[in-house]
């Protein structure tokens, strides 16, 4: 299952990347599982995505809870709580 992951704001800066393509095992689960997968890289990945810091997620440009399931071709965005307005 292929997904694109995008990072914004503090995450984009800390992870030093704004997006990447990932190939995950089929049925790899939900956004939280994706975060665990990424946090396993260690370093800033563990710091930012290991569950210590508040995180929001969108799937295909729509806000979703971390328990939302992923499908092949999804664009997942991970970002800190929004601060517009």
């Amino acid at each position: 299952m292929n997904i694109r992951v995008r990072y914004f704001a503090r995450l984009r800066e800390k992870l030093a990347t704004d997006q990447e393509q990932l190939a995950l095992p089929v049925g790899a689960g939900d956004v939280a599982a994706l975060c665990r997968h990424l946090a396993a890289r260690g370093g800033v990945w563990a710091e930012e995505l290991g569950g210590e810091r508040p995180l929001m997620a969108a799937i295909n440009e729509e806000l979703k809870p971390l328990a939302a399931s992923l499908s092949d071709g999804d664009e997942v965005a991970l970002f800190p709580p929004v601060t517009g307005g």
Partner: protein
Amino acid sequence: MQAIAICEDELPPVAVWHAGACVTFEGRVRDEQGRVVALEIEHYPGMTEREIGRIADQAAERWPLSMVLVAHRVGRVEVDQLIVRVQVAAQHRREAFEACAFIMDYLKTRAPFWKKEISVDGAASWVEAKQGDRDAAARWTPADGH
């Protein structure tokens, strides 16, 4: 009528409207006691417009509205410049007030914008989300009886 503008430059002028009542909210960059000279606002192009559209649609489902306009700056915004305008027209004032406040509360907690403060010495720091904004948005959810 619904319109959303994500602006790299100044916000468009306030729109002409035709209804009994209109409530307009505008927000400006504050200097935070002289500490801040500008904001840099990042967003998620595509999702930003869609999410604001969903927020405006939710407002239009809750209240009978004749117009919803949302305009928001992105990129660098200097102190004292406008960041955001939400303009809501309706037949009666209560609906216009509530819908405008609702849209602002949801915009603050759901639209994918992130502010970075640029201080006098050039240092930049991401603005942290405020619990007060989450509380303000939560008052519109059914669990609170609203």
